[in-house]
């Protein structure tokens, strides 16, 4: 369904003039909805059979001083393959809009984050607390008039501002005497081997049985969205590596794609192939860590080391392609930093030849192991409906049986020319959407990546790898959403420009962020060891959650 048709449907449903198209010629045409109609409009969009906006991609709040705050909802219909941008303008003094967390489960955390960072009050939200910043933080960092405090509880907030630490830290999270229960509170994290970074889960356990696992994030919040507002478009590129340290190529590409859309730049064909090759190599490397560390979480150390050994070789290739092993900064707006030479392509082919038997060896070693299967099969089964409602993306969504891959369904780059399958969870050892499916989908994706790489290496054309781009980028006021299929699902950058050389607002949507509330949802009834398996199977990367 096209944008105009959706608009007409909406206007027919809300005839009092509360729904109108945003006048500016935006790259993604948007609908502006009166603030009090947001909830009704969202429900309507979700439930109408021919609209069926089943997925909430991201909620963004944009501070527009002096008098307004925009709340932007990026919606997607997986069934009908259409998207919509929904906007609501709120008064800046009292920014309040009804929550949509009862429409899409993922809105819960999106709204908490925007409340925390921009200060929008989502009325009716069940648990509107700060998400990223500490509970006693003052102010909302993504407001345009925000001033960073020099000190937080005696800790200087910058290396330049040396403040002597004299003040004792106040007791912050003292255990409050709650109602008498038989449940034991257990902190899984922030420093726990299974949390893959600095993450905290507050478990309420009854013996070993978990009644609830509440994720507590924000330990790795570096404010990349804020940093991007202070940096030039090209200068934000290195920071996007740090969003997802295992999939730097993808966040690179998503940011490049958002900026290229803003600037209307055509990427040369060879550069697109370079991007595909680099990305697919990166995807393999990321799945190595994802599946390997999952095995390690379940006590099998050796498969992890074997995968890391292969990943080292990908790192060697990456070093030749872009000069770094982890923080690639390979993409540039309008192309890639440097060409992939023939020798490197030869290296990739050689590595793939070498890798194939190792893949099956890994299966013999661990994937088929009965203990491993029993640890994962039928554990934390997530239905397709829930997965969509929680806006799960990537392998986690596909494991629940939803065949949705941005490379196939919203094609970008040269992926339409390449032939590959999208592996989905079929209940390989248990029910569809259990931990084992989430593992096996990743393992099959590694094989699909090899297929894509072989084709891409055969097809790569000659030519330039960088479009002619002015040195200082000043896109006109507009907004664009660039997204790619990253190893942990959709990596999306929503860039809002205002005609200056710096983005006005950048919103990063990552796969892991939406995967976190799922842990809360799935945890009741699991054992402590299952929580570890669940975190591992969702392939949670803490910096991607916090950004």
């Amino acid at each position, binding site marked *: 369904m096209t944008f105009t048709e959706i608009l007409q449907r909406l206007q027919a449903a809300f005839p009092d003039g509360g729904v109108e198209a945003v006048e500016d010629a935006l790259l993604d045409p948007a609908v502006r909805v009166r603030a009090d109609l947001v909830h009704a409009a969202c429900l309507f969009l979700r439930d109408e059979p021919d609209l069926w906006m089943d997925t909430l991609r991201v909620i963004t709040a944009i501070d527009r001083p002096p008098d307004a705050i925009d709340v932007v909802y990026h919606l997607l219909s997986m069934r009908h393959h259409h998207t919509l941008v929904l906007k609501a303008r709120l008064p800046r003094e009292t920014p309040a809009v009804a929550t949509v967390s009862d429409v899409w489960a993922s809105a819960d955390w999106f709204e908490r984050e925007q409340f925390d960072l921009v200060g929008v009050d989502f009325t009716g939200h069940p648990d509107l607390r700060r998400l990223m910043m500490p509970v006693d933080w003052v102010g909302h960092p993504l407001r345009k008039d925000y001033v960073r405090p020099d000190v937080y509880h005696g800790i200087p907030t910058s290396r330049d501002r040396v403040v002597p630490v004299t003040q004792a830290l106040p007791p912050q999270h003292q255990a409050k005497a709650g109602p008498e229960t038989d449940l034991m509170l257990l902190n899984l994290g922030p420093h726990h081997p299974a949390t893959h970074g600095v993450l905290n889960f507050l478990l309420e356990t009854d013996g070993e049985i978990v009644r609830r696992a509440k994720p507590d994030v924000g330990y790795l919040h570096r404010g990349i969205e804020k940093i991007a507002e202070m*940096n*030039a478009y*090209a*200068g*934000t*590129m*290195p*920071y996007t*590596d740090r969003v997802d340290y295992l999939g730097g190529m993808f966040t690179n590409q998503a940011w490049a794609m958002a900026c290229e859309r803003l600037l209307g730049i055509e990427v040369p064909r060879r550069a697109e192939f370079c991007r595909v090759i680099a990305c697919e190599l990166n995807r393999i490397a990321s799945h190595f860590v994802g599946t390997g560390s999952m095995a390690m979480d379940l006590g099998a150390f*050796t498969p992890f080391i074997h995968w890391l*050994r292969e990943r080292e070789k990908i790192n060697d290739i990456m*070093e*030749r*392609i*872009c*000069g*770094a092993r982890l*923080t690639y*900064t390979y993409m540039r707006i309008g192309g890639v*930093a*440097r060409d992939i030479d023939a020798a490197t392509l030869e290296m990739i082919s050689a590595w793939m030849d070498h890798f*194939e038997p190792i*893949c*099956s*060896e890994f*299966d*013999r*070693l*661990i*994937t*088929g*192991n*009965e*203990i491993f*299967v*029993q640890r994962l*099969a*039928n554990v934390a089964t997530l239905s397709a409906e829930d997965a969509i409602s929680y806006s799960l993306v990537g392998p986690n969504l596909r494991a629940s049986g939803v065949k949705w891959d941005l490379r196939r369904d919203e094609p970008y780059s040269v992926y339409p020319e390449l032939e590959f399958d999208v592996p989905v969870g*079929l*209940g*390989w*050892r*248990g*029910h569809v959407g259990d931990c084992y499916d989430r593992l*096996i989908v990743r*393992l099959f994706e590694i*094989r699909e990546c*090899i297929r894509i790489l072989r084709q891409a290496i055969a097809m790569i054309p000659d030519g330039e790898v960088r479009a002619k781009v002015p*040195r200082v980028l000043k896109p006109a006021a507009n907004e664009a959403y660039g997204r790619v299929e990253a190893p942990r699902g959709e990596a999306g950058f929503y860039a809002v420009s205002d005609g200056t050389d710096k983005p006005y607002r950048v919103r990063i949507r990552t796969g892991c962020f939406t995967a976190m509330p799922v842990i809360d949802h799935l945890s009741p009834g699991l054992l402590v060891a299952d929580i570890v398996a669940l975190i591992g199977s969702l392939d949670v990367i803490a910096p991607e959650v916090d950004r």
Partner: protein
Amino acid sequence: MVSAVPPPVGDPMPGRGTGGLKGWIANWARTATTVLDGLAVTMSWMFRRPLTIQYPDKIPQPVQQMLPETYRGILELDVRLCTGCLQCQKTCPIGCIDIVVEKNEAGGRDITRFDIDVSRCMYCGLCSEVCTFAALRHSSEFEATQPDIRNLNLHFVTKPVPVARHKPGEAPPRAPRGSILKDVIPGYGRRPGKAPDGGEKNR
């Protein structure tokens, strides 16, 4: 590619729901065979030679020499080539490059300060990309451990140097990669020496 993973099983709850003697025996058998599979793999690895190298002392050649040309190590400035255009300073997303260009008595311009705070540098390579004269490039050096973080603010210019004036084609050849850092990094080269046997012993 041959996969050792069998296709999906029809039984939604294998092993758990299967009751009866048949399931009991099947579970025994499946566990035994898959454990044997795994043991066979690990056993075969016991007879292969290790792949790791013993960094830093028992390696055949310094890691710096093994790295590809494209490697983005610590930044290195050949000041003879620098025209003082400040493009790198403007491009750096963090602002870890600090350049001061002053007029000298002769009427020309001198670079009086060119500091790169390597402890902040995130090795993105944007600055070396905008450097038209290849004055600023990444070396393949990565070992610069210091007792004090302030030592990592590298001073590439210690006394005023006149800015370079040459056309792109006529520039003098750049100093070899990594040769400049020797004088700039405090205590450069005080890393553990090579193994006496040249690092061949790797068992």
